[in-house]
């Protein structure tokens, strides 16, 4: 493995993020090639975390744009501060300033609200990390707009002029696949799929993040999660659920799993009524062994 990638992996581990070569390589390439990185994976596998860790690692500013349906350029890029403009117009009513002067005043920097994308572009000094979270929730039009911004890293505000990034940000996009993203956006980005962690990785994550859990329990938990994910569930639990659960078990001072304990704390792991039913059926028919059996 290239030394730089190893170093990144080490730095990510130091920043309390349990990682693997695939993730480290992608982060390394995103930084070297200066290309946006699209991260996909099930909910709760630590996609957003990559950006946070990156900013910690680089000691760079993290700018986050949370996407949602209906998000538009005014929310993402910039907007004029309308109340302030109105107030100003009101105050200026009795003055003799011309229309042109008034206009120049209210459409100037102090009246501009910088939204995340503009912040990321207009940043001085170190390039920031720009996290565009859950981009699949935004509309297709916004996706197209994003493509434009990401390829140019410059924004033209008619009243002020063009703002160009002196230090283009590192861009991380995450998607839960609520909506299929366009090929144009996909092919413009580097791609990383984060799967549910394998058994060993999950044990490491639990041990690292929940200090109150001993190794035997951590292994049981991970084995349980591994087999749980093989059942057809409406909401497959991610690492976030594993950690919540481990935390709960730790605060109950548990040192091993038994049926009663699992049923008591099930709410940390399964969050859909049908899933709970399905799991209970499975549990009555084949017992807890089915979920932790291979653990020897």
């Amino acid at each position, binding site marked *: 493995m290239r030394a730089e990638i190893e170093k990144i992996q080490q730095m990510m581990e130091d920043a309390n993020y349990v990682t693997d070569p695939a993730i480290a390589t992608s982060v390394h390439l995103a930084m070297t090639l200066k290309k946006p990185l699209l991260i*996909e994976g099930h909910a709760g596998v630590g996609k957003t975390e990559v950006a946070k860790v990156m900013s910690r690692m680089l000691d760079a500013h993290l700018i986050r744009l949370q996407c949602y349906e209906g998000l538009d350029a005014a929310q993402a890029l910039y907007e004029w501060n309308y109340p302030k403009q109105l107030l100003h117009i009101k105050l200026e009513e009795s003055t003799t300033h011309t229309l042109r002067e008034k*206009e120049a005043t209210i459409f100037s920097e102090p009246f501009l609200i910088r939204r995340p994308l503009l912040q990321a572009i207009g940043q001085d000094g170190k390039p920031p990390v720009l996290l565009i979270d859950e981009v699949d929730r935004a509309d297709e039009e916004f996706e197209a707009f994003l493509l434009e911004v990401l390829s140019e890293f410059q924004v033209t505000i008619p009243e002020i002029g063009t703002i160009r990034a002196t230090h283009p940000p590192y861009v991380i996009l995450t998607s839960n696949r609520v909506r299929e993203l366009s090929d144009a956006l996909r092919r413009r980005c580097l*791609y*990383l799929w984060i799967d549910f962690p394998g058994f060993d990785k999950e044990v490491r994550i639990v041990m690292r993040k929940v200090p109150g859990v001993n190794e035997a329990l951590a292994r049981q938990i991970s084995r349980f999660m591994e087999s749980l994910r093989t059942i057809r569930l409406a909401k497959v639990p991610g690492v976030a659920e594993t950690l919540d659960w481990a935390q709960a078990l730790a605060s109950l001072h548990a040192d091993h799993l038994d049926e009663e304990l699992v049923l008591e704390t099930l709410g940390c792991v399964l969050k859909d009524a049908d899933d709970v039913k399905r799991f209970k059926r499975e549990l009555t028919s084949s017992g807890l062994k089915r979920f932790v059996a291979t653990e020897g």
Partner: protein
Amino acid sequence: MAGPRDLTTAVLRFGQMLRASGMPLTITEMMDGVRALDAVDLLDRRDVYLALRTTLVARREEFPIFDRCFETFWRFQAEEGQGLEGLTGPATPAIPEEHAGDTGAEAAQKKVSVALEGWEETGDDDGEPLEVPGVSEKEILMDQDFSSFPVEDLDEVARLTILIAKRLARRISRRKRPTRRGGVIDMRRSIRANLMKGEIIELRRRERRRRKVRLVLLCDVSGSMDLYSRFLLQFLYALQNVFGRVETFTFSTRLTRVTEHLKGASYRTALARLAEVRDFSGGTRIGESLQEFNARWGSLVDRHTIVLLLSDGWDTGEPEVLANEMLAIKRKAGRLIWLNPLLGNPSYEPLTRGMAAALPLVDHFAAAHNLASLRDLAGHLNLR
């Protein structure tokens, strides 16, 4: 030691192979691949693999193709440290046989698709309102079941299908006129318009952006359904510019995504290709096919999507499975339409167990068995 030029060539050739296998790679991606190799350890196979995967792959579904091609192309020597040789000089027939002739075949294919590219625009469709379907002789064609046409007439019927679709396409796009009321307030323009007034007197509005409807087609190609599927596809492909996106799947006992097969080529070539994915094992497992669709392609469906399912409802699987999967689709989709050509037969009643289970979940149930019913279908292809 091999120079970077060889490396570039190797990556480009690898890219060609991926393209031939169905990954729509861009040149930029390939050049990124070359740059990425520069940033990793070339002697480490995993590094090379991850670097190329990160840059060339754009969705998880492409992983299997990528892995397969990677195995074939980047044939490394067994011992460590031999990486570079393997990299720059792919072992003689590292590319599978069928790929060797690919450049020729690809070029030929390209020519074909270029030649046929304009099929949607050809004809006398520009401006002049079409005579179709107005003439009495054609009126008769409108009501005739597709399956009752003699084979030699099918081409003519297909042509008519496209003409009707094109007329409808124009009508549908014309419907999108901006409205006076409604829409969202455009603060920016409002402020400007009222600059000298001291307060907002007159509001400026802008039209809320309309989103194009997307279509997901699930076509039964088992037995007699095949013919109807073809006409439906033909019809919708001529309409496709009206829609944001059209995704097509065929199924009989299993599900196949054919969207890529249908891209670019003419409907004729495309439909001919459909036969390749058909399987003749008999019986239809609609429920299982939908299950597969939901599991793998569920993210294609949202509330701006219309899902069209064309089938006679003869399901050899469990009705419960079918109902469950239909419900899953209905929850997410803007509209769920079931097309059953048998409905065109007056004596038909939807009594198969599959149909009975699915019908309560369907927003619209129609026939699609002749030209007239396809034309009527267009009226249902909108949301709200």
